[in-house]
């Protein structure tokens, strides 16, 4: 028995090391001083917060961070609201066209995003959305929606809807039944979906570099590739690393606190869809 435990423990360790090394490495780089940054050591010899101080002093990064957060939150909010409505209909109502909607969202989930880049580039330029927040929010909502619809309809199907009847029998109005019984049960699913959609928006790179051209709406992943460090002649490695660590923090927090939910959201949405 203990032998088996050691074996599993070893396998766990392999997975954990494999998963963490690139993250620890970029974190390590971000704490290195300019002098030691090219020494190739995995653990910094001299620790410094200089890189962080520098990036927060550049408008380039702060602006991008604001863009990333704002665009991510708005896209998530809209996608989750629209997705919740559609998923409720899919899980609970019977209407023609339901299959079609599921089919469309599946198609979009598999859509090659680069195929949208050229027409969107041209369309957004002609209607003035290019290099604006809405210009990124729109495609993010579009690609976030299939994810939201799948995950949420799987969640909604698991809600015991008998409870709605029970609440009505207990004297609740339709509104009370929803507010006091259904909503508390649906909330975790909606929350998990919001996390997944936000991660998607937070991650995107292709739309971010194609549909923006200035700091006005460039998000952090896109800004990273334009990074030149505090001054033009400085090696940007430290700055890039520090910025990378900053935008990894929310992901780490989500994963740490909501591991169980993210796992169940991803698996139920993708397999049982």
């Amino acid at each position, binding site marked *: 028995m203990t032998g088996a435990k050691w074996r599993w423990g070893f396998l766990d360790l392999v997975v954990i090391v494999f998963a963490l090394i690139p993250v620890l490495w970029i974190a390590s780089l971000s704490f290195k001083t300019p002098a030691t940054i090219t020494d190739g050591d995995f653990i910094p010899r001299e620790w410094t917060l200089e890189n962080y101080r520098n990036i927060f002093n550049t408008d380039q990064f702060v602006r991008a961070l604001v863009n990333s957060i704002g665009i991510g939150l708005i896209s998530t909010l809209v996608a989750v609201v629209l997705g919740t409505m559609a998923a409720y209909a899919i899980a609970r109502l019977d209407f023609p066209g339901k299959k079609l909607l599921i089919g469309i969202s599946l198609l979009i989930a598999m859509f090659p995003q680069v195929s949208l880049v050229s027409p969107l580039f041209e369309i957004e330029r002609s209607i003035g959305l290019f290099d604006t927040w809405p210009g990124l929010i729109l495609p993010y909502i579009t690609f976030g929606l299939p994810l939201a619809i799948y995950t949420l309809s799987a969640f909604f199907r698991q809600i*015991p809807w*008998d*409870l709605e*009847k*029970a*609440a*009505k*029998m*207990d*004297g*609740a*109005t339709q509104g*009370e039944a929803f507010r*006091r*019984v259904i909503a*508390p*049960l649906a909330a975790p699913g909606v929350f998990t979906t919001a996390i997944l959609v936000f991660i998607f928006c937070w991650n995107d790179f292709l739309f971010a570099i194609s549909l923006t051209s200035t700091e006005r709406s460039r998000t952090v992943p896109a800004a990273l590739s334009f990074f030149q460090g505090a001054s033009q002649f400085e090696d940007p490695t430290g700055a890039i690393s520090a910025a990378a660590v900053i935008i990894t923090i929310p992901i780490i927090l989500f994963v740490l606190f909501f591991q169980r939910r993210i796992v169940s959201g991803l698996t139920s949405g993708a397999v049982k869809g």
Partner: protein
Amino acid sequence: MADIVLDKVTKAFPDGTLAVQEFNLEIADGEFVILVGPSGCGKSTTLNMIAGLEDISSGELRIDGQRVNDKAPRDRDIAMVFQSYALYPNMTVRENMAFPLKLAKLSREEIDRKVDEAAKVLELTALLDRKPANLSGGQRQRVAMGRAIVRSPKAFLMDEPLSNLDAKLRVQMRTVVSRLQKRLGTTTVYVTHDQTEAMTLGDRVVIMRAGAIQQVGEPQELYDHPNNLFVAGFIGSPSMNFLPATVSDGSLHTSLGDFPLGERLRSRLADVSGDLIVGIRPEHFEDASLIEDSIRQRGAEFEATADLVESMGSDKYVYFTVEGEKASAAELEELAADAGSGDLPSSGSNLVCRFSAESRVKEGDTARIWVNLDKIHLFDPSNGRNVTLHEGRSSGVSA
């Protein structure tokens, strides 16, 4: 507390099928009525219409003399226990039971008092602070009942409340439900597909099939005088034996042999001819060697080989196979399908006899069997009607 009247209540579904057809029933104040039938017979739909969870397509529903067709469930003042229990997972047992009272805007003290009282009755006091996820099946069931009784509604509706419990607990909870109903004296409508529950629990039983009432009556009445093949086959365990039969020259021809028609049957069969189905309950057979001469002449005897003998201690179930055609009627096929035995392979009809424990019949023996002809029923296979009932009973619905 109140009486419930269903007056030609009908439920039609979008595709035009009638789930419930002109359902007429008067449920007296304090009565315990069971709706029973195979799945899809419309019993749950009927219950949901009484609850207000489904619209009534036509007809009228009156509770306490008031028409309530268009009232929302919350305005009907009735409580319901669901098969899945439908406990709110995010609330503790106490909160679950308090929920209807909170919605009714009762004061805190009153809510606490009523919940404590109901918890005591159902022995839930120790569990009040737990969440439903941490309860056993039987405990959840009791919480569901507690939530129903806590606000003293006009009536209880129960939708197969025991069918998610295991067999032993189900028998226990049956007596709990029964005692509780007697104690509170609240009008109760109880839906089940289990004929044993129907027989043991109800003051009256309503047997449904394909959206229509087959017979209404006290359990014993249904057992002794079934209106038709369906009721006869549905009530009783093991169920009634059916064989094809014909009548001619004053005697009944069956694959068991020819039986003389007594005075009782001859008068009823005056205007009946052609094919019939004979129905015999297992206990109306007996090991012929155990029959006293005084009653021997009420019946007839035949011989058959026992396939299987199950000794129950108090009595013996003896199984025979009778070669020849099987009794066939739409009702019997439906019953077989519901019991899941529709596609069991067998050549000929299987008979079950209940012999007294003294019988010495063993497997493989050729036994001499006596059948009580006073108790047999004859059915018309074309419409399933019991032709042996006298007019007063066969005319059906009696309140």
